Structures are given as structure tokens and as C-alpha cells.
């Protein structure tokens, strides 16, 4: 009996080994392990075995069955894997074929720059506010220490609607509206469109954008202005950026300054981009003039503050190396897609 079982096993294993398809393996399963299979037949022949030998034979049969099952199972798995692999081999694609894109649109470079600036100042606790683009003379000039005959009024080449109503030439007008609200302290930035009567060319536009900044609190110093704007420059142009403050004059701040940043192309060594200077002028700033505070009802003995104004297009042009301002208003899709 034992030999018979060995023989069956050997034959089964041989058939398994020679099977080249899943169906054949299934045949082996049916032929040896099925209800009418050979091992079942052996069990059926148990009645001819002496009762005392039956357990032993039973055990032998089970062992043989387990062994065949095991080998069979492994072969099935192996063969299934081979079949799947063969299938995948046929499914190879050319991964360099073009992507199926959703064709997402693009933000205007000036807006990208604006959102950068807003992000930085919101992070420092500033509120973004807006003011009117068509403005009264008082807010654009007089309340900013630029009275009727002031030369700065000429320098700004204002578009007038009536004698008293004009297109704002600077977002600084928003400072006044904010101060007049009487809520202190103030930390705000005011982005917006401004207008000056410059003919359109590669570096001028009659309409452009500024971002005004204003901080008013007790004990605000010029050192605070320096520190804040240095932080801003690092965030906007990179950690390595250094700043330089030069004295300047604006009617509504005193002391006043212009801020340069190290050229972000050459890092300050001097290159064609910064005309060899290593520095690029980026904004005007200063301590809010006490008369400006007084006019808006803030006591300059108690409060001080600083203000700054950044030209948005200037930042966009510099940061993205755009060489002609007219591109910003042409809206050629080939330009916009680059941002």
C-alpha cells in the first residue's frame, strides 16, 4: 500500500511539473484529489486493509494528499503570476506621450507679487484695507502735508476730474482714511491702483499699483521701521537679502528714507541687472510726519508711526525679470502663461 501511495505521489508530481497551463493543473487536481480521483480510490479500498493498519494507512494517504496539494498550490500561484506578467508585458505604454492636462489658468504676475506681499504682512499682524481710487484732493494731498501750492503736487502729475476730485496718485491716501477711523493701534497695508499722467512706455504706465503700509502705536521708532522692512525684504527676496536705507524726502514722513535691497541676481557684487551697483531701489518710507498725525486727529506727543509705499509693478518686473511694463496690460496669453 505504501508503495502504491508513493507511486501515485510520484506520478502526480510529475504531471504537475509537466503542466504548462492552469487547466492542466486543474486536471491533475481532479485526477488525484477529486471525488473520483486516485487518492479517493485508495481510501475507498480501505475496507481491504486490516483494521489495525487502517489508521496508519489513513495517515499516509492524508500526508500524500497534503504534499500533492502543497505542490499543486505553489504551481498554480506560480503559473498565475506568469500569466499576469505576460498580460502586463503586453500593456506597456509610452510614458513620454503627452500628458492630459486640465489647462489651469494663470494669475497675473502683479497679483502674484501682491499676494506675496500680503502674505508677509498678514503674518506680521497687518490688516489689508482698501480705499477709493477716485479720491478727494484732501486725502491724496492736503492731509498728507502737500498743500495747494506744494511742488510735490506738480511732480505727481495728477489726473483731475474736478478741482477737488482726482484719480489718486498714491495709496498713501488710504492712510488718512484709516487714521480718521480713530482706532489705535494701526497696522495696515493698503494695496491698490494709482494713476499718474505718464505716457505709456517700457517703464511707465498711467495706471499702476502701490502697496501702502502704516503702523501707528506708542513708541514706534525709525529702528522699528528698519527692522520691519528688512524682515519683509528677506521674506520677499530671500534670506540672504540685505537692505540699505538712504535719507530721502517725502512731505508726509520725517525722517524719510528710500530702501535699497541687495541685487537678487548677483547678491550685491554688481551686475548688468543692477547696473553694477549691487543694490536695487525698492521702496520709500519714513516716520509719519507729526502734522499728518495731527490733521487726522492723532496726538503726536503720544503716538508715532511709520509708513512705506511699494510699487507693485516694480517688484513684479524685478522679481520676474520682465523688461517691458506694457506687457502687464496687453494680456497676451503667451505672456500670462509664464507665471
Amino acid at each position, binding site marked *: 500500500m505504501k508503495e502504491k501511495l508513493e507511486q501515485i505521489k510520484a506520478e502526480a508530481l510529475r504531471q504537475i511539473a509537466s503542466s504548462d497551463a492552469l487547466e492542466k493543473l486543474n486536471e491533475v487536481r481532479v485526477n488525484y484529489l477529486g471525488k473520483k480521483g486516485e487518492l479517493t480510490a485508495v481510501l475507498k479500498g480501505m475496507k481491504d486493509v486490516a483494521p489495525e493498519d487502517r489508521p496508519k494507512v489513513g495517515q499516509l494517504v492524508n500526508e500524500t494528499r497534503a504534499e500533492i496539494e502543497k505542490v499543486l498550490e505553489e504551481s498554480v500561484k506560480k503559473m498565475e503570476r506568469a500569466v499576469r506578467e505576460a498580460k502586463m508585458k503586453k500593456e506597456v505604454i509610452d510614458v513620454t506621450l503627452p500628458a492630459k492636462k486640465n489647462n489651469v489658468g494663470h494669475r*497675473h504676475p502683479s497679483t502674484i507679487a501682491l499676494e506675496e506681499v500680503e502674505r508677509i504682512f498678514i503674518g506680521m*499682524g*497687518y490688516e489689508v484695507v482698501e480705499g477709493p*481710487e*477716485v479720491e478727494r484732493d484732501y486725502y491724496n494731498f492736503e492731509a498728507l502735508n502737500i498743500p495747494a501750492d506744494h511742488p510735490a503736487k506738480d511732480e505727481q502729475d495728477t489726473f483731475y476730474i474736478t478741482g477737488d476730485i482726482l484719480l489718486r496718485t498714491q495709496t498713501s491716501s488710504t492712510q488718512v482714511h484709516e487714521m480718521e477711523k480713530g482706532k489705535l493701534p494701526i497696522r495696515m497695508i493698503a494695496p491698490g491702483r494709482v494713476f499718474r499722467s505718464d505716457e505709456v512706455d517700457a517703464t511707465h504706465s498711467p495706471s499702476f499699483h502701490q502697496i501702502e503700509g502704516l503702523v501707528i502705536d506708542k513708541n514706534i*521708532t*525709525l529702528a522699528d521701521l*528698519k527692522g520691519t522692512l528688512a524682515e519683509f525684504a528677506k521674506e520677499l527676496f530671500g534670506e540672504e537679502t540685505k537692505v*540699505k536705507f538712504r535719507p530721502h524726502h517725502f512731505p508726509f514722513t520725517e525722517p524719510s528714507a528710500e530702501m535699497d535691497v541687495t541685487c537678487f541676481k548677483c547678491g550685491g557684487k554688481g551686475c548688468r541687472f543692477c547696473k553694477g551697483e549691487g543694490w536695487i531701489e525698492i521702496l520709500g518710507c519714513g516716520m509719519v510726519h507729526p502734522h499728518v498725525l495731527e490733521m487726522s486727529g492723532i496726538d503726536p506727543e503720544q503716538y508715532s508711526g511709520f509708513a512705506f509705499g511699494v510699487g507693485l509693478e516694480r517688484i513684479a518686473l524685478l522679481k520676474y525679470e520682465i523688461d517691458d511694463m506694457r506687457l502687464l496690460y496687453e494680456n497676451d496669453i503667451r505672456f*500670462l502663461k509664464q507665471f
Partner: protein
Amino acid sequence: MNTALSWIKAYVPDLECTDQEYMDAMTLSGTKVEGYSRRDNNLEKIVVGRIDKIERHPDADKLIVCQVNIGSEVVQIVTGAPNVKEGDKVPVVLDGGKVAGGHDGGPLPEDGIQIKAGKLRGVPSNGMMCSIEELGSDRNMYPEAPELGIYIFEDDVEVGADAVEALGLHDTVFEYEVTSNRVDCYSVIGIARETAATFRKPFYPPQVTVTGNGGNVEDYISVEVEDKELCPRYCARVCTNIQIGPSPKWMQRRLAASGIRPINNLVDITNYVMEEYGQPMHAYDLDMIAGHKIIVRRAKDGDSFRTLDGQDRNLDADVLMICDAEKEVGIAGIMGGENSMITDEVKTVLFEAAAFNGANIRKSAKRVGLRTDASGKFEKGLDPHNAEAAINRACQLIEELGCGEVVDGMVDVSGELKQEVVLPFEPDKYNKLLGTDVSKEEMLDIFKMIELSYDPAANNLTIPTFRQDLLRQCDIAEEVARFYGYDKIPSTLPSGEATTGKLPFKLRIEQKARDIAEYCGFSQGMCYSFESPKVFDKLLLDADDPARRAISIANPLGEDFSVMRTVSLNGMLTSLATNYNRRNKDVRLYELGNIYVPKALPLTELPDERMQFTLGMYGDGDFFTMKGVIEEFLDSIGLHKKIKYDPNAGKNFLHPGRQANVIYEGTILGYLGEVHPEVCDNYDMKARAYVAVLDMPQIVPYATFDRKYEGIARYPAVMRDISMVVPKEVMVGQIEAVIAQRGGRILEDYQLFDIYEGDQIKEGYKSVAYSITFRAKDRTLEDADITAAMKKILNGLEGMGIELRS
């Protein structure tokens, strides 16, 4: 302002620094230097040579061969210059040297021109004699130089000496950008004072002394000022026995470096003093002044006057004139008249140094259409005290230059002159504003250098009158900061109460609009706020369309930029057309920008600035693509109720059958549609274009970022399809309204899945099919529920003439 460094150094003799150091230090202390140019740039190995002998070139008629003595040796030079003769002293560039430019005076090459020994038509030539142009200058600066020829020195220069030195070209011209508050710095003395303070070197301004001839000015001239407000001070002095001739070389060189052409000693003196003191001067021929009397008064409306450039100028009563007893002789502060012009025959000169009202001069210059160096200075509002110093300086120079005799005395007519400002010295205040810890002593050192005097007893600072910009303590703090050094002020962050950074709700909605537009493939454009009034015709607006009531700019850049837009479409259509004509395919643009709606015209109050979200596209996509963008946007900002569309939008610029107002809760939020083909023609665009305009002020009140979770349905949905034959004029929106209204609470959704017109459908009808979904939140629906709901819907539809298809 351009000034030679040598002129500054005349008053700050201890100054020692490189050009770059000078530029950096001055800029950091507030006198911004825009740039500088070395006048000896690319001038190398150039000496004074004397032509000992001239011979004809054996093989060329137009060339001569010169033996030139350069001190150490005699070199042979061949030249084609026609103007040299034996004995002339000339600049000679030697073999291996460099000159700045060509003899034609064209643009100077960056690296100059190298000169090498060589042969000219077979004859060796070991250098080159130079014209003034080759030395990088021109005849405006060196009027004694010949036209098209070699520069010839006067005889007093030494043979073999540095020719560049002899021409005064070892110098650097600095260009300053002076801020409008620093009137005192529009002068060499002002800049020199700043230089001395910046480098902490002593400052030696010119010492003005006039000998005088013993006469009395009042015997020569009297002055009457009618309008003291427009002319706070008028100083007059007289010089006799005038000898017109060239001014000395040193004066010519300084003027030339400042960009002023030397003319003769008298003119040069007035120009020199204007540069040096920042005080414009005028010289009249006293013999032409009728009655030897000057009257300063306003012109009369309609007067005309011929200025010394020969132009007739129209005047009005706001223009201040200088007159004699009979006639006008000059426009105050702007330009003298042809009738009193100095000629070479002048014998007696009347000098005028005055202070005029800056704002008035600025306006007058605009009115008469003439801006001069003088008016440019006057309009900044000059210090009346400076006039006296300047006129005395001019008289001193008349004497020193041997140009004439000075009559003793000055006629001085002045109103009340501004007094010196006195401020208490408050060092703690300055430090508190600056965030610094500058010592009291250091502050006082700084003040001394800039001539603020300190009275320790009263603890007061007295501000000199030339510093009109120093009025308050913050101005004094800036002086401390400038000379202490902006770079030495620490960098800190504001202390005090913390504040929360915020983006206001309106701007958050606009940000969402940008996001959604971009997800949908639209790129952001930017358009001008002002445009041409012709736009209204291009957009086919009716004659009485309210949008035609636009705000006009009083002084526009031209008609194309003359009215504030009341419709945002022109910018969008122009941009689409630009793209179309550049053959860009499938373009989608959006813009967020204001329109300006006047409440009344002419404006008495500020207009309504309305933010418009404008979308435009051509190429891939249609009306419904645009509709999809609108719905995505409105959904993203919390407008979750049904958006309605009214085809009667009444927009002339849109296709009459393809336009709709966008309506939410009964409010018109905006409109969309296909652009009218005639409008497309007007914009030169030959594609179908679609636009949408959303009026953000109407949208923001409905918007919200609040969201509530409603749970995910737990009970199954039941779907029913209905297929209908519908009269063509019935819009699916009407069908949907019936479904929505009659579906009851169990109605979850309905979707159009087929719409068809054609062969199988009878004339005047279309086939429409909907899939309707029902679901209850709390139970599984039963057939009876659905049947009841469907019955209500179907009854409603039948009432509209709709037939159900089996």
C-alpha cells in the same frame, strides 16, 4: 545738478576720498549721487607738445609731417589737420596712449581709442595731435577750441606737461539728485557744506569782499516793488566801465563741467553765481532802463512780451513783471526781455538778485510756456537772505576779473523777511523717535557742522534761514539720523499690543474668484480704468444707455484715456482681440477691476466704484462653458440655492438669442452671453467670443464661507426617468422650476439627460428627458411615495402643453 568735484574741493580742501567713496558717503547722508563720470576717462599718455617744424607729406597733398617737441624728445607726427602752424602748442597722444573719442565728436566708445605708432602713406607717425572732441569734450565746453581741428593751447603751458591737467580734465563730475525740500543744496556751496559735514572736514565758503569805486548806487537806480507778496526781496547793484571779454579758464572749466557753455565774463559771472549760490541773477544794460527805475508789478491780462530768445509770450495778471519807468523789461524769475538784453557794447550793468514767490513762478512758467534754469530754482522758494550774498559775490567777481568797477551800495527793497526758526534742543525726543542712543555731545557736533547754532543758556537751537526745511523736532531728528548714519540705527520690530493679520471678506471673495477662474482655465489680465468715449459706440450702447454717463478726466493723456469706464467689457474684448490677432488659440481671460459709476455729473461726490469679475473667451468652449464657471464660482462662495437665468438681459453688445442675466434670490448678479457679431467686427475679431460679467457688490452680501455637514444619505435613492415632447419655446428652466416646485421634500436631484429636435419630433416641438432622483432622510421610500410625487410633477408639466412620451 552736475558739479565738478574740484569745485566742491575748493571749499572743502581737506576732502580726500575716491570717487566711489564720495558717491556712497554723500548718498548715505542724504545728498543722493546719481552717478559720476571721470572727465579724463580713457585719456592716457597725452602731453603738451610744440610743433617745431612742418613739412609737406611727399605722397599726400592733404597730409603734413610735423616734428613735435614733447620736452624729453622730438617725435614725428603725420596729420591731416588744417589748422596747425609751427610754434603751436598742442595736446599730443603718444604711442601706446589712448584718446576718448573720434574727431567727429560722435558717441564715445566705452574703452576709448588706442593710439599706436605706424606709417601714414609710407611716412612714420609716432602719435597723434588731438582735437577737443578726441579728448572727450566739445566746443560748447571749450569755446576757444577750433571747429574741426587740433586744440591749440595758450602759450603759457609748459612743453612736456600733462595736457589733460592743462585742460582741467583731471576731474570728476558728479550728478546729484536733490530733494525738493533742500533748496539750499541746489548750489555748489550747499553741496560743499553737506560734503564737509559728511566727511567731518572743515568748510571754507567764499569770503566775499567788494572794494567799490566810491560811487552811490542810488544815483544810478531806484527800485519800487508793488507786489511784495510775489517779490519778498529785490536787491540791485550797479557796475560801470564794463569790459566784455572771455572769463578766465578756471571759471570756464567749472561752468563747462556743470554743463553751462561759457560765453563772456559778464554772462559767465551771473551763471557762476547761480551755480555757486543757487541764486539766479539777471544783468540789465542800465542805459536801456528808462528813467533808471525798476518797478516790480503784475502784468495786465492780455499783455504780450518778447523774451530775449525772440519769442512773444502771452501774459496775464498773475505773471509778475520787471519794468522800467516806461515798459516791461523782463518776466520776473523766468527770462529777461529782448529790449534790455546785454550786448558787447554794454557800459553800465544793473545786477538783479531777487526772491520771488515759488508757487507763483511755477504757475507763471507754465502759463507763459517757458521753464528756465532760473525759474526752476525760483519755483522751489529761495531764501531771500541769499540774494544779498549772491549779488555781492557777483560784484566781487566783477572786480577780481577786471570786468568793471562796482558802485558802492545796494538797493534793497524787501518786505518782512522770514526770521530764523528757534527750537528747543530735545535730545531724548530725537533718540525716542529714532530708536537710538546718540549722545548729546555728538548731536551738538553734528549741528555745528550744518551751522545750527546752540545756545546752552536757553537750550535752544537756531536754524539758519537757508535751511527752510527745518521747522519741527522731527526735522532735527532727521539731521541727527543723517549724520549719525542711517546704517548705524538698529533694526528692531515694533513692540506693543499684538494685532491680528486680516484679509477683509470682500478680498477673500475676490481671491476665490481668481482661484475658480484659474481652475477653469482662465488667466488673469489687467486693463486700464480709463478708456475712450468711443467705446460706447463700439459696444452698440443706446444713445440713452445709462452706461454712457461716464466721468471725464479734465486733463487726460488723450481721448483714448479720457473717461472712467462704466462697463468692464472694452478691456476684455480688446485683450481677446489682441490675442486673436496674434493667432493665439483657445484664449480664456478674466479680470477683476473697478468700474466707476457717477451718482451725478459733474461729480460732486465720489462715484460708486464697483468691482467687476469679467470673464471672456474664444475658441474651445461655448455659452454653457461660461455658465459653468459662474456656477462653480457662486457655489464656492456659498451661493448654494438655484441660480436663475433670464434671457431678456437686454444687452445690445450680446447676441440677442444667446444672453442671460444671472439671478440669485431675485437679484441680478451680472450677465453672460455670446458677443454680438457686430461688436466682434468692431474689435476686429473673427471668432465667436463669450463673456460674463459679475457685479461683485451684488454678490458679496450673499457669500459665506460657513459650511454645515448634512450627513451622507443612509437610505436608498429611487430614480425615475421622464421623456417629454415640449413646445420649442418652453425653456428647460421652466420645466426644472416645475420639477423643483412639485417634487416635494423627497426630491433630491434632477438631471437633464437628453434634448433633441429633429426628424422624429413634430414641427415646433423638441424632445426633452430628465432623470429625477427621490430620497428620504429617515426611511426607505415606497412606491406610493414616488408615484404621488411623480403625479404632481407630471400634472404640472401637462399644464404647460408638454406631452409625455411613452
